[in-house]
């Protein structure tokens, strides 16, 4: 029996974003950000059920952030996400947590951003932007990145890999007609700028949040370039998984949840 969280609460920001707020005083916020042609929840499969039924996460709030990947550039999505994140830090005051849920304001000590594929670009760029503004909440941030596209992705393969859902059937008909495709190309202007800005911030040693806490690579990933990003640690390797299913826990594949728990307990 689920005892720890609210029902999925609709979030006005993004595209079908949803949140589970702990009934307990929450100290950690986990925000999930999907990748190319993913969706707020579909990308993560059994993640919502697994974490809301787990006592380890009883004091953790979860937000599954959605955005229409085809609608705009990665920069646009990153800016929108950063603005949203600013309101999540105090979710009641930021009107992310509805007052009618009757829950108190949160005082988070940790904010974990979990991203898949393109989501890693969105999240990293949002954090870089926050660093430029010296946001007070940056020390709380840590990154958990599944199959990140932060060093680029092979777009043709991406279109084919995600061809397992209905809406993904759209992608082959519109390849290269959307700005986010350009952003995903290895060596794109977006990625080059992101790397450059991250290096500068890391050189100042003031914002360690730009170093991912965990990066997960899938053995059968043929989509993203598996190259270390700046000062990120060596990737954790997951075998017999591909680009799409590496972040999808199920009854037999629990590693994604375990990775999150490791960050939670650090």
């Amino acid at each position, binding site marked *: 029996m689920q005892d720890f969280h609210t*029902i999925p609460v609709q979030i006005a920001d993004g595209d079908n974003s949803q949140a589970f707020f702990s009934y307990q005083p929450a100290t950690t916020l986990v925000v999930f950000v999907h990748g190319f042609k993913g969706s707020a929840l579909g990308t993560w499969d059994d993640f919502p059920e697994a974490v809301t039924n787990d006592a380890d996460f009883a004091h953790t709030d979860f937000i599954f952030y959605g955005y229409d990947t085809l609608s705009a550039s990665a920069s646009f999505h990153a800016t929108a996400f950063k603005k949203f994140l600013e309101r999540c830090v105090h979710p009641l005051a930021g009107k992310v947590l509805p007052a009618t849920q009757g829950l108190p304001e949160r005082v988070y000590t940790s904010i974990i951003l979990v991203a898949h594929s393109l989501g890693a670009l969105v999240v990293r760029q949002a954090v870089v932007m926050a660093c430029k503004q010296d946001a007070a909440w940056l020390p709380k941030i840590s990154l958990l990145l599944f199959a990140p596209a932060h060093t680029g992705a092979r777009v043709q393969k991406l279109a084919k890999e995600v061809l397992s859902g209905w809406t993904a059937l759209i992608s082959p008909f519109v390849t290269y007609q959307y700005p986010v495709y350009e952003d995903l190309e290895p060596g794109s202007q977006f990625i080059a700028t992101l790397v450059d800005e991250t290096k500068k911030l890391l050189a100042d040693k003031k914002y360690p949040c730009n170093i991912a806490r965990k990066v997960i690579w899938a053995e059968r990933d043929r989509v993203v370039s598996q190259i270390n990003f700046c000062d990120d640690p060596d990737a954790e390797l997951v075998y017999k998984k591909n680009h799409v299913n590496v972040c999808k826990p199920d009854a037999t594949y629990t590693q994604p949840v375990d990775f999150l728990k490791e960050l939670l307990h650090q």
Partner: protein
Amino acid sequence: MNNQQRNLASLTSEYKDNSKAAKGYTLLRGMMNDPNPAHLGKVAHLLRYHAPIGVYDEELKQRFAVDQLIEYYNLCFVGALAGFLPATLDADTTREIKSILGHHDVKPYYSQYYPYYLASVTLHYATHGPAKDWEIARNSTGLFYNFLMLNRSIKHDKDIEVFLNLLDHVAYTAPDGKRIADIAMLMNALKSKEQMGALLADHTRPALAKALYGFFKFGEFLSNFKTLLDKSESYPALQSAMWLYHGYYLDRLGAEVKTAFLDGFKHIADNLAANYTELFPEPEDEDDQEEEQLSADEQKENVLAIMSRMRDNILYVLQPRYKEPLERYCNGG
């Protein structure tokens, strides 16, 4: 407050207090309690059939609020079957459901004018309580969560709305009277790689593009819904309630427009197969080329196999058998 009470409070916050349902409740309660004899029949007038007196503007908004309220009651019922709420709802909620859904001027709205069977089942449940043989899905609140989350993926989606309207033989016209979207135009678009590409890339998203997106989104929804129904197989009453929640569309799709939907599906599969090489061009780097040459035909077959499975899933979901457990419950079986 125990867990199930907290869950009810959470559900009520999201689906009543923070939605139009609260307005619907205040509206209906005000009309029902109005002592002025001149105002008798206000509920019946608001919830009338849309002919001969049409429904527009403010009345439409009020009816939408009532629809949201009915949805909230239905969710209470589904939540009880899922073990998220007590199997027997608390006295206040039960009394409220009976007073609204059981009102003589509300009943015809959902049972006669715009038949929505689940509302009748919810009233039956509030009146008679759970069936003795119901297996409550304890430890499976996740099913209820999945259900709520899946519903949201299609609710208020303009693309899906336009697609379903086309299936209902609605035609869209431009201000100059020129037809810009109908079901035949959608079928033709699905056959043409060029037209599909152009429509999907049109950021102004005209009605036909909306319908095209809606076609894919609704297909995705049905595929995901099939997965949820499969997971609920051990709980026939819950499975039946979840199916009936979408019963209005599923019935319509199954009975009247299934052929058009499946035609559209065949067109897109043919389109993908005929243009596979162009839609999935060979990669430029040599390593990838070697990998592609080895498996291009297989991959094409895989794509078509995936689509075939999707088609089968749709047909599976449209089976009216899902209604039966709750029909038996209401009929005393």
